[in-house]
């Protein structure tokens, strides 16, 4: 009986993975198809659709916006994330528990709810949609990830390092830059990449928050899909997959390098 149930589980697992990855592989393969129609059998291999992507102003614009948005989001989220983690781990103040819950809440609330809530709130404040609002939304949405990663590492950094540094004459700020931040760096870096990838990938919140005339890559794909299914979209999908998979892998590799250098 053992072997049959194992075989069942194995078969089932394989099916799940096939189901998840086949569409991705199909998209990536078809992006190299030279034919106008995105279907098998492939007629030949070409980079035609990537070239067209490159020449499509709307898409390159969306790409630049996504990059800028992702980078700014990551920068702000990791800065605030580090500060918030320090406050939550190293200091005691009234309302600490509530603040912690509030900062983590965005990953517990469905994204649509968060998106609508923020939009309504800003309507009520009579603030118009803008790139800044979009950025704000992304920061709120990515902050919990940074905080969770950074907090976990900060808890593991013994206070004595900071106390020793201060006893030797370093002010609290010097101690932060000399001791805490370097020891925290792998986590900050991981948080930064997390924030970037999540922002780069996001569509739900972005659809609600983006002002007219601004498209990110995901909303651009979404808009293009409404007209027709062009092979260009396959190429764009391939680029997205590479960016969102390669970046975290790269990040993990760098973090590992950092980690091993400091414990050598």
């Amino acid at each position, binding site marked *: 009986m053992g072997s049959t149930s194992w075989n069942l589980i194995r078969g089932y697992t394989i099916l799940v993975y096939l189901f998840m990855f086949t569409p991705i592989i199909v998209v990536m393969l078809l992006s190299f198809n030279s034919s106008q129609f995105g279907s098998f059998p492939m007629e030949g291999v070409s980079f035609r659709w990537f070239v067209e992507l490159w020449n499509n102003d709307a898409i390159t614009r969306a790409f630049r916006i996504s990059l800028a948005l992702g980078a700014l989001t990551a920068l702000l989220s990791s800065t605030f994330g580090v500060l918030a983690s320090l406050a939550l781990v190293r200091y005691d103040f009234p309302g600490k528990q509530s603040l912690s819950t509030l900062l983590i809440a965005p990953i517990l609330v469905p994204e649509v709810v968060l998106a609508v809530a923020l939009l309504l709130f800003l309507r009520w404040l009579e603030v118009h949609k803008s790139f800044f609002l979009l950025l704000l939304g992304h920061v709120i949405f990515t902050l919990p990830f940074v905080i969770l990663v950074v907090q976990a590492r900060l808890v593991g950094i*013994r206070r*004595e*390092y900071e*106390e*020793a*540094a*201060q*006893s*030797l*004459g*370093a*002010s*609290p700020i*010097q*101690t932060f830059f*000399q*001791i805490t931040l*370097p*020891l925290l760096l792998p986590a900050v870096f991981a948080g930064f990449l997390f924030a970037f990838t999540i922002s780069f990938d996001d569509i739900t919140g972005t659809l609600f928050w983006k002002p007219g005339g601004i498209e990110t890559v995901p909303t651009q794909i979404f808009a293009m899909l409404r007209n027709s299914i062009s092979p260009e979209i396959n190429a764009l999908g391939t680029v997205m997959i590479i960016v969102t998979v390669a970046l975290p892998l790269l990040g993990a590799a760098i973090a590992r390098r950092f980690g091993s*250098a*400091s*414990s*050598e």
Partner: protein
Amino acid sequence: MADKVAVKLDGIVKRFGGFVAVYEMNLEIREGEFVTFLGPSGCGKTTTLRMVAGLLDPSNGDILVHDKRVNDLPIHKRNLGLVFQNYALFPHKSIFDNVAFGLKYRDVSKEELKKRVTDALELVQLPHTADRYPAQLSGGQQQRVALARAIVIQPEVLLLDEPLSALDANLRENMRVELKRIQDQLGITTIFVTHDQAEALAMSDRIVVMSDGRVEQVGSPQEVYTSPSSLFVAQFLGNSNILSGRLDSKNGALSVYVDGLDSIQVDPKQLKDFRDGDSVALVIRAEKLTLGEAKQDEDHATQLTGHVDAVDYQGQAARYFVTAGGHSLQAFNQIDQQPVKEGTDVHIRIRARDCVLLEPEA
């Protein structure tokens, strides 16, 4: 110079919410003195040390370093050397940079910095480790580097919180000697925290025995060992026999009547504030009970008869568990030729001058 006060604790109190971790504590530490806070875990040693360091604010009272009140001075302006139980070397900095760390915040030229770091590493006998990283050193080596890092800034006071507790037994004894040598050589005022009486007795100029947030006794190692001022100190340091009895002072001679035993002679100097008929606790160290097969008549000593229940043989010495008059006693004697045998009857000699009288437990 020797009488100059380096650190003064003036009625310092530390409360955590409703819990009092340190009751009003008064202490003067002289320049160059090695003072140890000794007591069981949780008695407030670390809390007191952290107040001196500036890592905790006292709830009441003042801390003075070289006659200057430092209560409101943040830790990084106090110029103190701090060494922790777990070394706390910066893992991302080389040994050189670890030791040099404090000098970067002081007005020190590049050449002088290099020289002082090199000298400090030499002092702790680790001259060739400058380029390595903390994780590449053993625990004992890391603790030496931590010590070098603390003393290289020429601190006004060196504060050590159980610095030897993380090391294994052999290393601990070597480091004890080493630490004392360095402290002597530099003449640096030192506060040392430990729960290990052997460390305290071996290293200190004075020991502050603490219990439950209170100072029980302050004195030289010999004073706290031979003349404990409370039952707590008598029990915490070494092995003591404690008998309760009634004081009997007749025509200049002093003795204590203990139920089931004869009167035990006590040196008249022990009278202190006691009066005839008072209840007292009689404290006799285990090594001061001498067992013998024959009765030795001697002035100023009491002979008891007892029975050896168990012998804990330790090579050069033995610990005996003896009953006398219904009381269980411990004796710790050097072995001359043969240890006294288990199950035999013995004579126990107690010299009057080895008896200490204390207030009985309330």
